[in-house]
Structure formats: C-alpha cells, structure tokens
C-alpha cells in the first residue's frame, strides 16, 4: 500500500488544532479586513469625487493602514497557513493542492492583481486623476473579493464536498452546498470588519467632531450586512451534514459554546452599529470602535473554530479522516497494523521501559497526535483518567461509537492494547518499569472481537 508516512511534530502542550487555529484566525481576520477595505474605499472614493474632502483624506489614511497591516502580516500569514497546514496535516493540504491547483493558481493571479493595484494606489494615488483613482480602487476591490471567491470554494469543499463525492468532478466540489452561504457570510463579515476598522481610523483623523461623526456614519453603513448574517448562518446550518449540525447545536458543548460566542459577539456588534449609530445617531469613539473590532476578532475566531470543528471526524468529508487516513487505508491498517510501515523512530525512545510501550507511543503518534496531546491541551491522559482497563480497550476499539466525531480506530488489536498500556503508563506518571504483559488473560482476542463488531465505517455516513 502506498500510504505515505510523514514525520510527526509535537508542539509542547498545544494541540495542533490550536496551532493551525492561531495562524488561521489571524490570517482570516486580516484577509477579510482587506477585502472589506477595498469595497469601503471604493465607496468613499466615489463620495470624495462628489466633493467630500474628508472622504478623500480618509481613503488615503485608511489605505496606509491597509498596506501596513494587511499587505504585510495578511499576505505572510497566508504563506504561513500553507506551512502550518503541512505541519499539522500534510496529506490534507496535499489533497487540496492536487484537486484544486488550477483554482489556487487562479486565486494567485487575483492576489497578484490585488497587490499590484493596491501598491500602485498607495504610492501614486495622490498623483492620479479621479477616474484613474476610482478604476484602480475598483480593480483592487474586485481582485481582493475574487481571492475570497476562489479560496472559499476550496475551503467549503472540505466540509461539504457534495456531488464531488459521487464523481461529478472538481466544479461540483467547488460549487458545493455550503459555497454560497459561506461566500455571502464571509463577504458580510469582511464588510463589517472594514467598517469597524474604518471607524478606528476616522477617530485618529484631525477633524472637528461633527465631520468625524459624518464620516463614521458613512463607514458604519458598511456594517449593515451584519444584519443578514443570522439568515446566512441558518442557510449554512441547513446545508452542512446532519451530524456536524448536531455537534454545533448541543451535541458537543465546546462547539456549541463557540457557536454561542460567535453569535453573541456578532449580535452585540450588529446591535450597536445598527441601533446605536444608524438609528439613534450616537457617535463611536476610538475606544468603542476598538472594542467592537476586538469583539469582531473574537467572533471571527469562534466562527473559524466552529467551521474547523464541524468537519470532524474528517478533514475532507468522506475522503480523509482527521488522522490523515482514507477509509480504505483504515480497512487496510486493521489488517496490517497502524505502524508496521512507519519509518520514523521515536524521538524519546529512551523514556519507555519496554517495546510494548514504544509500540503504543508510535500508535499514539500515528492515530491520536493530530488532535490530542498526551498531557497538554485536549490531553488523552485526562480524557481517559477515570476509565477502567476494559473500558479503555472497548472505547478505543469502538472509537467511532465512543464519540461520533472520532474516526474509526485504524489498527489491530495489538495496536489497541499497546495504546492502552501506554495510556495507563502515562497515567501512572511514567514509571521506570512497567509490567505490560501482566494482563491475564490476554485481552487481544476480545479487542479483536470488538474491532470486528464495530467495523471500519464512521459513525455517520459521509453523504
């Protein structure tokens, strides 16, 4: 079997989801800010060309922020996303690149146009005529939104591959069931972020209060799409797989809490902007604007966490589990064993008192490490702290039944028992000696029966 084994890195107490999440959330926040920023500046430039000098000053000031923040950290965290995804799930990013490389190349062209138009405006904007300024900003706004269009199809495919699973081809995967709600939702988020960042920038401008207030009201209108987000969220919820929806709406408390954080923060922002600024005509000072922007960051973070978590037990639904194994490979490894072809030694081999524990550590690395740590965040030792020996064996063998968002165990009874011994040993504090063969009678025949009973199908059908 041509199953590639990649070396596995650990990140101390951080589970890999936090590592990719940290980079991803920052990147998404900045990228969406840049997209909304393009649209916002295009609108303000039009206003400026109708005689509003303050709008012109805002466009030039805002663009500097955009270039300094988004063009540097935003662009580079995009590169970091690739590198980090390789670190946490090389096969997932490999499959995405294989399947969508021409669309990724297409997105790159739009990105290049965005950067060129953006730098040109930043550098030469004040020297350009009105028509050229507007066209350049229009090109920048279009290109940045088109980047979102292409990447959104690739990312939403991971959760809802749709008819692509039936062999209907790449375009069926790209225009998948969650493509449009995701795209519109992200566009609304981008617009809101740009409006809030705009309010921060306007507050730093040297203008009389009344003129600032007028600009803030204009910028705030860009946050109005936030009012449509509940409907878009419902649309998204309606098209995602039933089991994913169930995790988000009560099936998994952490996921439900993140849904609540995202919804609550969005409600607060939307309420303040629409009722406070647009209806009641309140002003928005720099402290409040910054606070709202921070809330928006929190909402983005929670939303991205929800989007990532909803895919469990897959990274690409129906195709690749979070363990970076395909369903076919799981079936194969049930026969051959999880680590029999793993070429990489343990980095801490000397820690383990015997070969069975080393075996268990390799099984942990191959099957658990993608989402868990041993004793850090989402630590397996803590999760199984109170389980009895047989409970450990049963729950690991029937993993997809233990928790529906876990993938099926991809190994033999020997692998399960080695992992059980490792977890017990770690739970005991890692003593210098360990009687791994003391278990009588041999539990492996029973584990084998459990593995056979549960089979290799996931808890929920992928389609």
């Amino acid at each position, binding site marked *: 079997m041509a199953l*590639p084994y*990649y*070396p*596995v*890195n650990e*990140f101390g107490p951080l589970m890999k989801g936090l590592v990719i999440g940290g980079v991803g959330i920052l990147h998404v926040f900045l990228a969406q800010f840049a997209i909304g920023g393009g649209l916002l500046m295009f609108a303000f430039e039009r206003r400026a060309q109708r005689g509003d000098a303050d709008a012109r000053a805002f466009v030039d000031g805002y663009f500097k922020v955009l270039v300094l923040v988004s*063009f*540097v*950290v935003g*662009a*580079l*965290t*995009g*590169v*970091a996303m*690739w*590198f*980090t995804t*390789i*670190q946490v799930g*090389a096969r997932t*990013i*490999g499959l995405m*690149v*294989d*399947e*969508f*490389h*021409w*669309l*990724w*190349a*297409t997105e*790159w*062209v*739009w*990105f*290049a*146009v965005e*950067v*060129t*138009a953006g*730098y*040109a405006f930043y*550098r*030469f904007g004040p*020297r*350009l005529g009105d028509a*050229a300024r507007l*066209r*350049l900003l229009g*090109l920048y706004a279009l*290109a940045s939104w088109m980047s979102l269009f292409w990447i959104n199809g690739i990312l939403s495919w991971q959760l809802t591959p749709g008819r692509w699973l039936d062999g209907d*081809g*790449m375009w069926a995967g790209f225009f998948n069931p969650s493509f449009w709600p995701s795209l519109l939702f992200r566009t609304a988020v981008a617009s809101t972020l740009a409006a809030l960042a705009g309010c921060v920038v306007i507050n730093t401008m040297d203008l009389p209060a009344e003129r600032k207030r007028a600009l803030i009201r204009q910028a705030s209108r860009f946050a109005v799409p936030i009012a449509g987000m509940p409907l878009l969220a419902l649309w998204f919820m309606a098209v995602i797989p039933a089991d994913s929806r169930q995790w988000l709406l009560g099936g998994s408390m952490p996921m439900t809490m993140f849904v609540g954080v995202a919804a609550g923060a969005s409600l607060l922002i939307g309420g303040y902007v629409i009722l406070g600024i647009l209806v009641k005509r309140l002003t928005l000072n720099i402290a409040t604007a910054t606070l709202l922007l921070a809330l928006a960051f929190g909402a983005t973070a929670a939303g991205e966490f929800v989007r990532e978590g909803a895919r469990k037990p897959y990274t690409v639904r129906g195709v690749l589990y979070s363990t970076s194994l395909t369903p076919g490979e799981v079936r194969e490894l049930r026969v051959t064993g999880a680590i029999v072809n793993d*070429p*990489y*030694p343990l*980095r801490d*081999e000397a820690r383990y008192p015997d070969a069975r524990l080393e075996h268990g550590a390799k099984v942990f690395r191959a099957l658990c490490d993608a989402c868990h740590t041993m004793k850090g965040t989402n630590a397996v030792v803590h999760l199984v702290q109170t389980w009895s020996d047989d409970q450990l064996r049963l729950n690991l063998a029937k993993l997809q039944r233990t928790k529906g968002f876990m993938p099926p165990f991809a190994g033999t009874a020997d692998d399960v028992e080695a992992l059980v011994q490792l977890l017990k040993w770690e739970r005991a504090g890692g003593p210098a000696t360990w009687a791994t063969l003391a278990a009588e009678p041999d539990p492996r025949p029973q584990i084998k029966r459990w593995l056979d009973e549960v089979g290799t199908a996931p808890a929920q059908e992928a389609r």
Partner: protein
Amino acid sequence: MLPGGIQLLWLALYLVTFALHAVFVGYVVVGTGYALVQALRRTDDPIAERVRDRLPFMLGCGITAGVAPLLFLQLLHQEKFYTANLVLGPRWGAVVPALIAGFYALYLAKAKPRWRRLALGVGLGCFVFVAWSWTEIHLLMEDAPAWREMYGAGERLYGNAGVVPRLLLWLGAMATLFASVAVWWQTGAERKRLAMIALVGLATCGIAAAILVARGASVEPAARGWLYLLAAATVLHTGGWVWTLRAPDKSGPLLVAGAGTAALLVGAVVREAPRLALIDAPRPAALEASGLATFIATLAFGILAIGWVVQTIRDAKAE
C-alpha cells in the same frame, strides 16, 4: 528525462514563476545589503535612496511571486517538500516571522532615518536567514536517507556541507539580479558602481560553482546542453556589464537584460535538472484536476490588468 503531459506544464510554470520570484528577492536581499553599507558609511547615494524607497514594494512583489512556485513545487515534489518541512519543523516555520520582521524593518528604514542602520541590519539578517533556510530545505528534500536520522535525533539544522557554497552561489546571483534591475533607474557613475556589483556577484557565482564542483557536484549528461546555454548566456551577460562599466550610458543594460533573462531561465532549468528524476509519480487527483482553462483566462486578464496599472502610473508620472 523531462516529465510529460501536464507535469511538464507544472514544471514550466514552476521554473518561470521561480525565476520571476528570484528577480524580486534578489533585489531585496542585495538591495538591503547595499543600503545598509551606504548607511553605515554615511554616504547616502542615489542608488541607496532609490533602493530604500522601493524595497517594501519589491518585497511585496517577491512574496506574491513566490506563492506560485510554492504551489507548483507541491505538485512536483509533494512528499519530499512536506517531509523536509516536517523534519525541520518549527525552525523552518521561522521564515515567516523573519519575513514579517524584515518587511516592517524595510518600512522603518524608509521612513525613519534615525533607525535606518538598525532596521536595515535587522532586515538583512532576516532575509539572509530566509535564503539560508530555502537553500537548506532544497538540499534536504533531495536527501531522503537523512530524514529518518534527523527526525529521530530531533535535529533542526541540516548540516550538509553543500549549504554554504550553494547559498554563496545564490548571493552572487542575487547581486547580479539586483544590479540588473537597479541599472535602469540610474545613469553615469551609478551605473558603473552597479556594474562592479554585478561583476563581483558573477565572480562569486564562479567561485561558489567551483567549490561545488570540487565537492563532487555535477550536471546530469542530459542537462549538459542547458549548461552550455547557461555558460553562453552568462558570458554575454558578463560582456554586457563590462560594456556598461566602460560606457555606462550606452546600450550595455540592454545586453545585460537580454542575456541575464536567458541566463536566469536556463539557470533555473540547470538548477532543477538533478531533481527531474525525483519528480513524484503522477497522482490521479492531480492529473485529472480541471480548471486549467479558468487559470489561463484569469492569467490573461491578470496580465492585462497589471499592464493597465503600469500604464496608468506611467501616464500619471508623465503628467
């Protein structure tokens, strides 16, 4: 020797976009070094002034241009690239914060004379670190036997003796690339200075290549034709610089640009030659992926759009 079908197209796109990326990053690395030297000597000159002004933009272009070869590299050498990434681990990931720090340092050097020397020093350190890291990962990708040992030992540095001369070769090439771009914005004595930088860069390339050959490096027989082309283009390119040195306001830069472009593209092929036999076996998902027509149409639009932006700026400058 060459792959066929769609893999050949990936390879061609990889080489062309890599060459484009090299032009921008060459300008940034050596430009930062040049500006730093001038800042330390406190002898600001027109070259340094212009370089400082353009460095952030050129780095932005370099990073943007670098995304495309990174994409095609993942199609051609997926398993090797990913494995080398993972073996080097967080140490490899440090290239991103280094680039962010370097980027802001360039803005600082441009805007704040008081911090200029420190900012340029930090920027240069960051960029050389990134160049070294890429050289390291390139060699590690080809050294599959080292992966297991490095991983087991937790080694994050690839101590291959080829890293230093290869990096030296690149720094020499970058000096030439920097001068080849900068020469168009200068005249007279500045052009002469840039010609000297380019010739020193070419000499550095020669020395580094000699070290690599002495250490056993060779070009596969099937790629020798490309090597001869590279030699011929380099001779012409060198001639262009000598001409520029003697008559800076004549047409030397034209020869420099023409022969330099040829040398860069052919050099990219020669650089890739040892890896051609290592290109991944075709993966069905990648071979069958659609979207090429969309990419071509978007590329055509993108070229036109960028052309329009350039023309708009020219018009604005003319006015």
